[in-house]
């Protein structure tokens, strides 16, 4: 993966992302390794995403890299009408790697084609967000001690939720049994289901949340994203449909963990937070380790020595 962009989870193999997960474990054991002292990481956020940006910037800072960039297209030359291509080529002169979030789907692929330095996609519209997928895999593996033969439930917006699509496809490599809980209008797209069928894996669909809880090892909750709806009435109909409350976890398996890509609005009540089964805040912390692993892998730095190989 050295010097390669990461645009889509489809770009990397199971072997690649397991290497990233293994390396992330080392960073979790010791996050402060100044392995990127001589590097500049650019974070270009054409739409605001505080969480993802801070996670990447924290990862880069803990590795000793300098971070440059902008947090909103309104404060960059995009406002003056600069094309994405010009912005990317210009910033590539100032940095060794570009982390990019952009509201248009396909923008990250395009950026990776025009950029002389590697590009990490930190979300392109509703399309891909591969580092979220990697940190979800890391969180599942860490809490269940394996990725194989798990029962995993996805709850909420399964139609527009890009994190769900990428994670489902990645999990088809691991004999997963899928349980999908969503309102009819937000069902998982058939293109994603096709990946499951191709691997001959089982999946079940539900409209009620409670019946699925005792059956699964991972309960992956999602926010119903208002910004993905073109019809406000459709949003109003479904926005409060699934709310996880603490007492609903009484019959859950002991090893069950609740995941959520965050931010949550009201789909998990606060009384769940103190339940040992709640894992979403730890999941967010894992994002830093996974992004440290990814930055060092793509920049080709040897983590054991903790220094850049001298030429």
């Amino acid at each position, binding site marked *: 993966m050295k010097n390669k962009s990461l645009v*889509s989870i489809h770009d990397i193999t199971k072997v690649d992302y397991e290497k990233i997960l293994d390396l992330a474990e080392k960073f979790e054991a010791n996050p402060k390794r100044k392995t990127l002292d001589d590097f500049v990481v650019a974070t270009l956020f054409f739409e605001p995403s505080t969480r993802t940006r801070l996670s990447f910037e924290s990862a880069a800072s803990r590795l000793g890299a300098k971070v440059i960039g902008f947090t909103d297209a309104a404060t960059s030359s995009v406002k003056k009408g600069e*094309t*994405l*291509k010009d912005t990317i080529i210009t910033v590539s002169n100032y940095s060794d790697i570009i982390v990019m979030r*952009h*509201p*248009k*789907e*396909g*923008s990250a*692929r*395009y950026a990776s084609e025009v950029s002389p330095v590697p590009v990490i996609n930190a979300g*392109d*519209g*509703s*399309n*891909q967000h591969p580092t979220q997928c990697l940190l979800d895999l890391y969180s599942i593996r860490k809490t269940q001690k394996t990725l194989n033969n798990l029962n995993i439930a996805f709850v909420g917006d399964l139609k527009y939720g890009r994190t769900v699509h990428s994670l489902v496809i990645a999990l088809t490599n691991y004999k997963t049994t899928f349980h999908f809980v969503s309102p009819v209008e937000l069902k998982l797209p058939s*293109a994603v289901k096709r990946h499951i069928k191709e691997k001959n894996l089982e999946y079940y669909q539900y409209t009620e949340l409670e019946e699925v809880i005792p059956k699964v090892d991972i309960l992956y909750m999602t926010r119903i994203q208002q910004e993905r709806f073109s019809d406000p009435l459709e949003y109003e109909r479904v926005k409060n449909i699934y709310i996880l409350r603490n007492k609903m976890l009484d019959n859950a398996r002991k090893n069950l963990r609740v995941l959520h890509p965050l931010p949550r609005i009201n789909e998990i009540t606060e009384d769940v937070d103190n339940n040992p089964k709640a894992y979403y805040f730890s999941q967010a912390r894992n994002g830093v380790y996974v992004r440290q692993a990814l930055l060092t892998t793509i920049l080709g730095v040897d983590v054991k020595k903790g220094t850049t190989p001298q030429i």
Partner: protein
Amino acid sequence: MAKQNIRKELKVSAIENGTVIDHIPPQSVFLVIQILNLNKIRNQIMIGTNFESRKFGKKGIIKVNNKYFESEEINKIALVAPSATLIVIKDYTVVYKANVEIPDNINKIVKCINPNCITNHEKIPSRFSVIDKDDLRLQCHYCEKTTKGDNIQFI
């Protein structure tokens, strides 16, 4: 009776040099005209449709004098008239005949159906891979969304 005497009269006259596009589904004839920009060229063109066809029942045919097409232009035809036959005529003789084929990749000619795709907002030539040739479906190289055959729009 000699064979040539029972041969039916050609409904559209032969051309000396140029291209014949045969076996076009009648409902696609006007799409083919539009896609190939035949309404904008100055060559002589003969257009026929709803002719009887042994293979397809009804068919359309287009003959363009003194015009030969690039393969990229012919790719466009395959999307709306996969059954079409391409015939190249030189000096009243068929020098090349082939069925048009849906290619594996379709570049520059189709617009991505996703209004939020970056190709609809910056000057980027579109790129698609054909993920299903029978039940025509194109996947955008950039936004990864699928465009079904019925929804294809040409640039």
